[in-house]
């Protein structure tokens, strides 16, 4: 399978924060979910891919091209939603159309206005009169209207109500009906990702903690809930992390089938990405 995006050993130093050797690959036709706490490095990674930040080391390839050398060519085919970064808010959606018409070769005004009407967005009102959800929808409409091959979306569903999130996720799934197209999206709302992401990349403190297919994570990993005495019997190598709550131990295991074979009758819960995030970050080994 061909990769649409390759990040190799991406590192970047700030005072007080460091991105350490981030590497991942996104194949064509797939959705990768980028999860992690606020400030974990998701946005920094995305900014490096888009060349918004400079002075990083490592290699980034988009469509097989170097992101710095072939910057212009790449960006013709990338659609972007960035967290809180957009057109100046005194402009109106109509303005965005006339600006983008002269910015992207493939800008499709009809498609853009179709999204606007699907999203119930006014064409003639200044962006500053929009609610947060409306802004997000406008950003998404803008990102999709030049028929991009890769969508890079930083928190595209934040600020959207459940109905709107549903709509947007439908649009994303429509987007990858074309096998040449891929999506990299970061989100706090992990349930969105559980449904549609093919790969999960979990980043914490500037480092990648975990990288798996979503199926494997949700299918194999599990949370064992047990008492202290049961916990004491466990081999340290059989679990990833644990967390002690007031009434029980929560233990994250990598393979719930094998675990239950070895230890028998423990309650093993199916895991959600949220559980996984909390246990990986707050849990201890």
């Amino acid at each position, binding site marked *: 399978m061909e990769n649409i995006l390759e990040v190799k050993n991406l590192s970047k130093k700030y005072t007080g924060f460091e991105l350490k050797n981030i590497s991942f690959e996104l194949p064509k036709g797939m959705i990768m979910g980028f999860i992690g706490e606020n400030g974990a490095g998701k946005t920094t990674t995305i900014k490096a891919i888009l060349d918004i930040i400079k002075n990083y080391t490592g290699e980034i390839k988009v469509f097989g091209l170097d992101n710095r050398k072939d910057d212009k060519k790449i960006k013709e085919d990338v659609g972007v939603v960035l967290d809180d970064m957009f057109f100046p808010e005194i402009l109106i959606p109509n303005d965005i159309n006339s600006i983008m018409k002269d910015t992207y070769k493939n800008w499709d005004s009809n498609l853009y206005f179709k999204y606007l009407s699907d999203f119930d967005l006014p064409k003639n009102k200044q962006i500053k009169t929009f609610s947060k959800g409306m802004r997000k929808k406008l950003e998404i409409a803008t990102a999709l209207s030049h028929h991009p091959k890769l969508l890079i979306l930083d928190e595209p569903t934040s600020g959207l109500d459940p109905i709107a999130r549903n709509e947007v996720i439908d649009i994303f799934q429509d987007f990858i*009906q074309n096998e040449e197209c891929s999506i990299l999206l970061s989100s706090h709302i992990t349930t969105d990702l559980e449904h*549609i992401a093919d790969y999960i990349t979990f980043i914490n403190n500037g480092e990648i903690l975990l990288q798996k297919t979503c*199926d494997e994570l949700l299918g194999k990993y599990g949370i064992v809930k047990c008492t202290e005495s049961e916990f004491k019997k466990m081999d340290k190598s059989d679990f990833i992390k644990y967390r002690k709550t007031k009434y029980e131990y929560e233990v994250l295991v990598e393979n719930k089938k094998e675990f239950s074979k070895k230890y028998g009758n423990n309650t093993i819960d199916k895991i959600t990405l949220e559980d996984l995030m909390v246990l990986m970050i707050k849990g201890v080994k």
Partner: protein
Amino acid sequence: MEIIISNSSGVPIYEQIKEQIKVKIVSNELQAGELLPSIRTLAKDLRCSVITTKNAYEELVKDGYVRNVPSKGFYVAEVNKEVAHEEQLNKIEGLLDSAVTIAKMNNISKKTMNEMLDILYEEEK
């Protein structure tokens, strides 16, 4: 085609898809030679990831229920109904086996077990 996905059952989604398609094939709801929805369409309709449906189809191909015709799609294969039937029987046997193990551990008589089975069968009707 109806496929019902449960997000809380703990059974991996690809397995749910696989099993339900198998049942439909064995029960002739899906005829041999019929074209299945594409990996991407199915993922969209079921609102799951592409890899999930891809896994399900790949396993179905492996088990001989589905044929992959490159650049055309996935077709329901000519399934040997006896083999498929055998497979289902094996599965039941496995489940009954664990039921019996639990029964024996707890001194539950064969008679009680039979009664339970009768009741369950009646309920189904």
